[in-house]
């Protein structure tokens, strides 16, 4: 072999550049087709007055975005989105850390408990949420039944009928839904901590609380940040829980940007406005991603 042949491969398949391109192309095509293209389309739509019935694009500058912004429902949805994501993920982190702690322990029937914990995540979201719809039913809610049996209430709670209860309900179901994913992420992080460290903590005489707050949580902070990132993005971008449970009601008290984009754009027909609503999620998500990734990197450099 001379250097000549090394520089100029005889066959295309010998060319590292060609091969790199070839092997990368599925990913690139995937990202462009399924992420980039719809995203670009959403941006374009937000500057037009496009409707579901009229595919022609007429640019109207900021009119569509202004119309969306001036809508009081949008403002409410914006606030709800924030609180929905923040409150649910606060609970998700607490719950996930606890669950992960439990799941890394050895006990009888561990596989079954693991299975149960993961169930909300593997079950199709809409199907699972339908079960919640029944659980929170105004008349037949088993929660109400239980509360009545123990004498805590004598009237039904109307979980989805009262604004604050409805918000609590969608947050609770969202937590129930995301916590398993977060728990698995945190669990992976826990298992990555060498066993020796856990043993050292025990020999050094730390109790469960010290172990949790001085060892586990600081060591898990980067991985918890990742779990939070996923949780927040899921809470903001995925509308299934709210769509099925409340459709944004009562009186838009549980309306979030993702559901509002759907009702506005698809059910209402104002596609451009729907895209503009959805687009408001984008800077928020980018900002959050940047913040969390930066936090994660800082923790990594110990």
């Amino acid at each position: 072999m001379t250097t000549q042949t090394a520089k100029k491969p005889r066959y295309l398949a010998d060319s590292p550049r060609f091969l790199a391109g070839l092997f990368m192309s599925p990913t690139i095509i995937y990202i462009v087709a399924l992420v980039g293209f719809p995203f670009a389309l959403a941006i374009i739509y937000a500057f037009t007055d496009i409707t579901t019935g009229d595919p022609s694009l007429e640019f109207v500058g900021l009119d569509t975005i202004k119309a969306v912004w001036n809508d009081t429902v949008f403002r409410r949805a914006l606030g709800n989105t924030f609180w929905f994501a923040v409150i649910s993920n606060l609970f998700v982190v607490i719950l996930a850390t606890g669950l992960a702690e439990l799941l890394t322990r050895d006990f009888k029937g561990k596989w079954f408990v693991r299975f149960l914990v993961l169930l909300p995540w593997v079950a199709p979201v809409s199907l699972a949420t339908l079960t919640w719809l029944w659980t929170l039913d105004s008349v037949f809610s088993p929660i109400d039944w239980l509360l009545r049996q123990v004498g805590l209430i004598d009237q039904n709670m109307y979980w989805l009928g009262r604004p604050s209860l409805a918000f609590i309900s969608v947050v609770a179901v969202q937590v129930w839904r995301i916590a398993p994913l977060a728990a698995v992420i945190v669990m992976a992080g826990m298992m990555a901590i060498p066993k020796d460290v856990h043993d050292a903590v025990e020999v050094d005489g730390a109790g469960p609380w010290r172990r949790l707050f001085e060892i586990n949580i600081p060591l898990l902070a980067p991985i918890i940040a990742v779990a939070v990132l996923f949780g927040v993005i899921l809470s903001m971008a995925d509308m299934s829980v709210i769509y099925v449970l409340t459709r944004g009601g009562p009186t838009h008290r549980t309306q979030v940007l993702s559901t509002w984009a759907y009702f506005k754009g698809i059910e209402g027909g104002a596609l451009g406005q729907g895209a503009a609503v959805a687009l408001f999620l984008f800077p928020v998500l980018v900002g959050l991603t940047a913040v969390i990734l930066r936090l994660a990197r800082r923790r990594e450099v110990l």
Partner: protein
Amino acid sequence: MVPRRYPRGFTRREFLYFGGAALLAAACGPAADVTTTLAGGQGPSTTGMPGEPQISFREPTQSISGELNILLWSHFVPAHDSWFDPFAKAWGEQVGVTVNIDHINTAEVPAAIAAEIQSGQPQHDLFQHIAVLSQHEPSVVDMTDLVMEAESRYGTMLDLTRRSSYNPHTEKYYAYAPAWVPDPGDYRKSLWEAVGLPDGPSTYDELLEGGSQIFSDQGVQLGIGMSQEIDSNMALRGLMWSFGASIQDADGQVVINSDETIGAIEYMMDLYSNAMTDEVFAWNAASNNQGLNAGTLSYILNSISAYRTAQDDGLDVADDIYFTPALAGPETAIVASHVMYNWIIPDFESVNVAAAQEFLLHYTENLAPVAWHSKLYDFPAFPDRVPELNNWLDNDPFGSNPPTKLQVLKNSTDWATNIGHPGPANPAVGQVFGESIIPVMFAEAAQGNMTPAEAVADAESKINAIFNDWRGRGLIG
């Protein structure tokens, strides 16, 4: 096909639909598709019951060939679909067109239509939806010729369906609406007998008085929703009209901010505090049906499908469910149609327009079997095509006890109107509907978040924005 039963008297379809099935169907995949395939030459199935109307056939006037791909909902009365698919395919064989039918959950239909039209290459030649599709006007075939042909053959179309398919501003039929579904009051006779109204309420005053008394004496509440879903939207529009209020006038101008609207809201606040619970804010489209069949509601506004399900499931409550026409308010007594079938043909080169139009004529020709196989759920927009309808309603072939129960529906065209009344069902009206502005207006006041006047003003500003938006597109006057 025997539909699977779900708890509390629901067919799988209703269960899926009401549960927010867009997502569900995506998760379940093709399970939601109930397309029936028939061996060549085999005709549509029949109920084999006496009095069943026969399929009639007329040669197409245009020369047609190729494929006809139809997308429509999975009917709430499953028997309809097991009849419809072979019916359409048999027609295709007779005229030399390959007919393919996709049924999807009705919640998914708007998104599917939007996606196919946005793509510029729709996969279907004919779409059907159970609500008005006026927003699609710019990208669909004008149905004027079809309507004229149908009227020349089958007599005048109902004003109700015309106003739900015709845009007077552009003078264009954006859809073809050959059938509709009435929305009577469904009440529990035993409960109303106890308050001296054995025939159910006939006015809103009676609804309030009787409903309140039933609630306080018997603990069963009324079922008029104020939630962000279709039935609440329908019921509250009926209330507004009967109180002399409306969203727009006959010319498409926003007139919601009126004393009449405030009157309707105040009435609803009374109704809520005396005869209902917070449940009504939580409802989805299935809730009032479920409540009626479960015995927890004394009166709801709905089609007969909940009742048919109760019958099919052998629920005792079926015999106790009776129907009333629209309740009278201070001004009049009208309600919206429960379902308004809109068929549209997307205006693209690849679309088999001729076959689609000919099929719609064939469908109109056979509105009698349509009504029959939907168990009298679907009503014709060309009443002449179903001369037996009133006889069937007098003596329900599908097992009502007593069989005269559905008589109330005989003159339902007198008390039913279109969304957008007294104006046309234009896209602005559709968007107001889609965003549930009317139920939210009522709920804001009922929950005490706003005074009735504030709630109306808030709704008005949102509605004005929507109307101005569509006015800018030239689709409304």
